[in-house]
């Protein structure tokens, strides 16, 4: 097993700032826009983005939610362990909003497919965009691409990308783990 540091804390904070500014550039005033993080692993990033957006724009009323996609996944009954749902928090109207979905890693695209289904169960958004911290390109199983990308990684299918964001914002890191031995 080999671990390679892809992003350290300094680069991560630069990337998060850049992603925030891209959002501000594309979303006029953020009046009809909402940030939605994907449970379970996307929410640490989306909380960070939400926090940073409030600091940059000074707007404390940005719409923010967290979406659980468990019941919309396409691998139910096709894997060994049970899919356990996480908490969901969408306490605003999705209808006619510009929604930015946020996840940590874009890999096969299946999570995002499920997320779009889960999202439309709350209403019809006027648009949906996708922001990811890491894009593992050439690994897609569905025709899905991100609107905002933090960092692009070339990796093999059995590699692993670990996004280690701390609640406190210190010692963040992103690792690429290769040569994982099969048990």
């Amino acid at each position: 097993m080999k671990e390679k540091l892809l992003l350290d804390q300094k680069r991560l904070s630069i990337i998060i700032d850049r992603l925030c500014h891209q959002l501000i550039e594309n979303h006029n005033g953020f009046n009809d826009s909402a940030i939605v993080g994907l449970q379970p692993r996307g929410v640490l990033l989306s909380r960070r983005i939400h926090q940073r957006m409030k600091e940059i724009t000074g707007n404390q009323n940005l719409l923010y939610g967290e979406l659980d996609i468990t019941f919309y996944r396409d691998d139910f009954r096709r894997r060994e362990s049970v899919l356990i749902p996480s908490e969901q928090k969408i306490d605003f109207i999705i209808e006619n909003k510009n929604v930015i979905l946020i996840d940590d890693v874009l890999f096969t695209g299946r999570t995002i497919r499920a997320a779009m289904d889960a999202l439309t169960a709350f209403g019809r958004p006027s648009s949906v965009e996708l922001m990811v911290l890491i894009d593992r390109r050439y690994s897609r199983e569905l025709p899905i691409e991100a609107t905002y990308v933090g960092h692009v990684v070339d990796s093999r299918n059995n590699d692993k990308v670990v996004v280690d964001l701390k609640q406190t914002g210190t010692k963040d890191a992103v690792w690429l783990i290769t040569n994982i031995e099969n048990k």
Partner: protein
Amino acid sequence: MSKLSTRHLIGIKDLTVEDIQQIFETADNFKAVINRPIKKVPSLRDITIANIFFENSTRTRISFELAEKRLSADTINFASSSSSVSKGETLIDTVNNILSMKVDMVVIRHPSAGASKFLAKHIDAQIVNAGDGTHEHPTQALLDAYSIREKLGDVKGKKVVIVGDILHSRVALSNILCLQKLGAKVMVCGPTTLIPKHMSELGVLVEHNLRKALEWCDVANMLRIQLERQEIKYFPSLREYSMLYGLDKPLLDSLGKKITIMHPGPINRGVEITSEVADSDQSIILQQVENGVAIRMAVLYLLAAQG
């Protein structure tokens, strides 16, 4: 988290405490789902479920059917009154015929105790017991305990009295087992003739005076007198039963504390419980019904995950 420890849901007996906790946590999520504008998720879209009811039911059957539909399963409904059972077909033949049409799960209610266990032994599909005679009614017990957890924060350490026809009640047995597993103290209360012998061997307190039982408890679960299962007279008259074991507003208000009132339905208003009590703010009878759908969704989802 891991899978449930059982492939079928025959009774609370077969569930571990971890199983019950997992069902509750999953039900929390489904409760959020059924309160959304779009109340459906696609999890069980490739599963077919047969609801086989050899006994009358309103709540349980509708609740299961709704849970299945909210999970996007395909459902078949079967009631014995309108079927070939009345032409003399056996239980196994009936079910095997239904299964040969490729059904993955069977929800069964039957007047004989052990019917669901018998089926689980002899057929491939997963079985969910929706009440077998006077034996068990596991999903009712789960939703009752879940409703107590929702109302009082936790089940552990709570005192629950089950009042009425304990002898003929599958709800009582499943409730006792479930509440005890979760750490509650359980008492049963009713006329001597309607309390089974050896109750104390289950670790259950027995009380024949309703007032004393109510003064002891945090939660009172009022059961219906199951006249249809009683082949002999167990008490002189319904009127006398109602006077001794019926819960009315003056009695409830005289307790000096606010206990929670539950009822698994159907209610015989004016017998075990008066309308005033059933509709009071201490009653969580309708919340029980709402939670029933979430609990059944959780059970079906977690069982289906085992394939």
